[in-house]
């Protein structure tokens, strides 16, 4: 399977659970916040590298972002990726998930693939749309929320996580699978992959390579219009009740009934 080609899409995101929003512009404040590879994209990369270790495969990591997104590609190389592509063009700034996935799909087409792996969702936007939309653009099968993945011949067998159940499904390759953090513990970089290999080439795909009409990409090309982004205000102070556990249960029950959140039995 040396010729098996896996593409992993990864995104650089701010490493914090306390992302602040600029109150005037309504965009994320990224200054002073460390950037990392989106955690579930790293799980996707780990799946790819495990497949490579087991069967042999060529692993290509593709990211779209500003030139500084190169950092996660260097990290991917140090983890064991074979090839890296940075999609970067000022024209693409402000692209929504639909346009982003269209751009990524075209890059995938140009590189060629048997399997595409992405994270379930990015910790900054939390849409969980891009992976699935890439498959839509490419007209290939997609399986989302993988917690386990096996390859048998030409088929991919995936256990996917639903709200209360797991589902085992399979499809033929080429296909796309979105990966969750339950899949694995991503490996560390290796020191020997950093020294002597740091300057491995990264292919830069800008619009002169991908050739989109400037009206179909970026903010102008995006059907999604964000009307407003705001920080939620703090919750109101709750009421404090002192009493026994039984009294507390009785009180909660009566409140829930009063609010019609549960029905009378």
């Amino acid at each position, binding site marked *: 399977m040396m010729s098996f080609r896996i593409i992993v899409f990864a995104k650089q995101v701010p490493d914090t659970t306390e992302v602040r929003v600029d109150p005037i512009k309504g965009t994320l404040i990224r200054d002073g916040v460390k950037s990392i590879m989106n955690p579930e994209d790293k799980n996707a990369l780990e799946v790819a590298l495990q497949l490579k270790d087991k069967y042999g495969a060529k692993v290509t990591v593709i990211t779209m972002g500003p030139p500084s997104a190169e950092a996660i590609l260097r990290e991917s190389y140090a983890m064991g990726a074979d090839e890296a592509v940075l999609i970067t063009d000022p024209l693409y700034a402000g692209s929504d998930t639909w346009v982003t996935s269209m751009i990524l799909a075209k890059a995938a087409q140009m590189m060629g693939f048997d399997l595409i792996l992405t994270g379930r969702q990015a910790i900054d936007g939390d849409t969980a749309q891009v992976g699935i939309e890439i498959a839509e653009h490419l007209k290939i099968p997609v399986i989302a929320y993988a917690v386990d993945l096996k390859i048998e011949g030409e088929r991919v067998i995936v256990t996917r996580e639903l709200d209360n159940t797991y589902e085992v499904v399979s499809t033929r390759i080429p296909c796309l699978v979105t990966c969750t953090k339950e899949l694995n513990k991503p490996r*560390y*970089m290796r*020191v*020997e992959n950093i*020294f002597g290999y740091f300057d491995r080439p990264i292919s830069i795909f800008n619009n002169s390579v991908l050739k989109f009409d400037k009206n179909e990409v970026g903010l102008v090309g995006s059907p999604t219009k964000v009307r407003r982004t705001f920080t939620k205000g703090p919750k109101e102070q709750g009421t404090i009740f002192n009493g026994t556990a039984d009294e507390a249960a009785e009180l909660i029950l009566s409140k829930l009934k009063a609010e019609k959140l549960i029905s009378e039995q």
Partner: protein
Amino acid sequence: MDYLLTKEQLLARELFREFAEKEVKPLAQKVDEDEYFPTETVEKMAEIGMMGIPFPKEVGGAGGDYLTYIIAVEEIAKYCATTAIILSAHTSLCCYPIYMWGTEHQKEKYLRPLLRGEYLGAFALTEPNAGSDAGNQQTTAKLVGDYYVLNGSKVFITNGGKADVFIVFAMTDKSKGTKGISAFIVEKGFEGFKIGKPERKLGIRGSSTTELIFEDCKVPKENLLGSEGMGFKIALQTLDGGRIGVGAQALGIAEGAIAEVLKYVKERKQFSKPIGSFQGIQWYIADMITKTEAAKLLVYNAALKKDRGILTSADAAMAKKFASDVAMEVTTQAVQIFGGYGYTKDYPVERMMRDAKITQIYEGTNEVQKMVIASHYIK
């Protein structure tokens, strides 16, 4: 100080930080309290290439440089001084002399598996009566046929109970004084070689510090490192590198303590205010950080000079002496800032203070470092 680092070193530091946070920090308390040697951490370090950082890929190393290795020791010591010294003794004191003075055969047989982390290394110079006076070696080695026969004992050997390969120093010709000392590569399990009792210590409690006993120990003559009589020179040059490692360990301990202090002074309130808002505490912290930054410059300076082949014994001695004194001072101050809580095992600063003490003692006491520094300048 990032301006001093290359892009490779910066990326490697990211790796060491992530590794230390996820793998070293969670075990640090157990390592101390149970005198637990963290074998699983050593195995994980081996997996990612940390056991052979500053050696070329051709001999099986990771292809990094000395400063990168020093940064690895520093980052690990921020959480666990024991794990840091396991790495440092292995790299500086065992791998390095084989790399420098070993034959092709010795490099193939010992260095390659050491750098892959399949073997752990140790260095045995100190004896009951040869501490600061290391030249006064009582262990003897006598060539009999194809073997050197070693007799004597070593004490306070870091990694002693866990190492597979030891660099052992012994007298091959007593009449020549320090010029009669030779170095040998000794394997665990060689006939006549026994590991003595482990020491119970104030700090770095998980580190395996033992006595080594040689009773007619048979060492194949091809295991002589360098030539007969070169031992003392090998020991001193090796210790120069080791001292930078201990300096890095001390630096990491100080930085770890400062991180704990910065967290604590924002949380701990007295007189209705976080104690970090008091000028008295602020002045302590300002001094702690300033001295630690100065220590970092000296340690990095020595590592950079070693990479460029211009390191002097004085450079290494200054880095080790200054950083270890700073570590002792900073950790003691950290315990003071934490007050009663700092004296308990609920917080890591008391452990850091106990761990810091050894850095003023081993790899040559700080008094020996002063002798080394002064003799470099007064000629």
